[in-house]
């Protein structure tokens, strides 16, 4: 279980994240939803360990993450533009996280091949990331993130760079894979439809503050604030 308590981050006079508290349960997919500039990217960077919080606590499975660098957190992350390593083959990309954990070559190769097959990429092991289609690159980024079996998966607008047609298909597959792995996941998005369709629960953020955190149904039936209702296009 992921616990976030009183998390705060200011950039100068601006509060990017203000006193956030929420939980993510084991195996759950939590969507963090909000307009651009609501602090959702900062939240992701705080959890990933790329930015230091001014105050507050993040714990994963009871372990306090405070002060730990990204490499010590065992969190998988998929960036919006995938951030694939262009000088490595698809297989080497997936192997990277295992190699950094000191896994022996034969074992990590087997694990990487398995992760590629799981994401539907069997057969592209030796291809360079630049030669893959957008959808394949997305799967590859996902395979790379899940191969080391992270305790938590962070997805930063993972579908926003895909064509509308592929996006719907990937949305379903993404949810499917997440469920099969039982992987605790936080997905950041500005797309209401995406959040409502695939998340177990949704946290709605505006200017760094949490407006509501509950199931899609609950949010649609009982929006907690006028902002939530307005952002989802619900008439009161």
């Amino acid at each position, binding site marked *: 279980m992921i616990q976030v308590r009183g998390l705060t981050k200011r950039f100068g006079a601006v509060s990017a994240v203000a006193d956030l508290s929420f939980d993510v349960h084991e195996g759950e997919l939590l969507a963090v939803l909000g307009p651009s500039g609501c602090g959702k990217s900062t939240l992701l960077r705080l959890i990933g*360990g*790329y930015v230091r919080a001014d105050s507050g606590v993040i714990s994963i499975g009871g372990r306090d993450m405070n002060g730990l660098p*990204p490499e010590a957190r*065992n969190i998988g992350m998929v*960036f919006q533009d995938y*951030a694939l390593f262009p000088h490595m083959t698809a297989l080497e990309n997936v192997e990277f996280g295992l190699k950094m954990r000191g896994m022996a070559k034969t074992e990590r190769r087997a694990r990487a091949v398995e992760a590629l097959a799981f994401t539907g990429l069997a057969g592209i092991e030796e291809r360079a990331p630049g030669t893959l289609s957008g959808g394949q690159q997305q799967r590859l980024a996902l395979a790379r993130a899940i191969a080391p079996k992270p305790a938590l998966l962070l997805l930063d607008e993972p579908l926003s760079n895909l064509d509308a047609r592929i996006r719907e298909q990937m949305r379903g597959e993404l949810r499917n894979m997440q469920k099969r792995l039982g992987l605790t996941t936080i997905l950041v998005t500005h797309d209401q439809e995406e959040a409502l369709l695939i998340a177990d629960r949704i946290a709605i953020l505006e200017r760094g503050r949490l407006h509501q955190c509950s199931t899609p149904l609950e949010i649609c039936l009982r929006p907690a604030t006028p902002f939530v209702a307005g952002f989802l296009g619900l008439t009161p």
Partner: protein
Amino acid sequence: MRKLLAPAALLWTIGVLGPLLWILRLSLAWQGSPKDEHAYDVLFYHPGTWTLENYARIFSEWFYVRMLLFTAGLALLVTAVSVTLGYILAYAVYRATPRFKTALLVLIVMPKLTNILVFIFGLKIMLGPSGLLPVVAGETFLLLPYAAMTIAAALEAVPRHLIDTARGLGARPAAAFWNVVFPLSLPGVVAAVLLVLLWSLGAFLGPYLLGNPSQYTVAVQVDRETNFDLNWALAAALNTVMMVSVAAIGYGASRFRSRAACR
């Protein structure tokens, strides 16, 4: 379209090809007859004569062989030092915030705004008596900005969030650098090596003004044969040897690059 190429063809013929062929011809002219062991009865060159004697002298007399070896060794040393230090400077630029980035780039380029003679005499005051160390330091100071700028340009093309990604996948900062940033910056390193190597092969002012005669390079000797000994045939031959070496390195590098591009 053909007609438009005429000025270019003219310029290339008169400005580049002509002089090169003239130097090649000069290098094959007889320089004069030896009067005793060291002095030649020489005045520029003997027109209309053909000989390979100049090349034979360059590759047989220890004075010239040593000078060729020293020139190559100096170029390799200066290249190694410049590219290493240049990479460190460039990496600082890469990791700096946008405001500091500009300041650092200006600082790197600043020495190049000084007149080169003023710059070298300034170094002479700083570095003390002539010798090998001042020569290496001087040439490095002259070429470091080019190495740093070339590598900085290559590093700038490496997306910074690739480092975040590598760290997120479990890489410590050093591992993220060696596995991701460094391999992706290699084209810039290769370009910087070539640039500095070719440039330092022609080192003249550093060895001439900061060195003793034992640190004189081929370029210095070409100047001496041309302007003091008035042995133009030998100067042309020395020059041709250097040109062929530089062309060979350039050709080798382009072959290497096209091979790397095919991978």
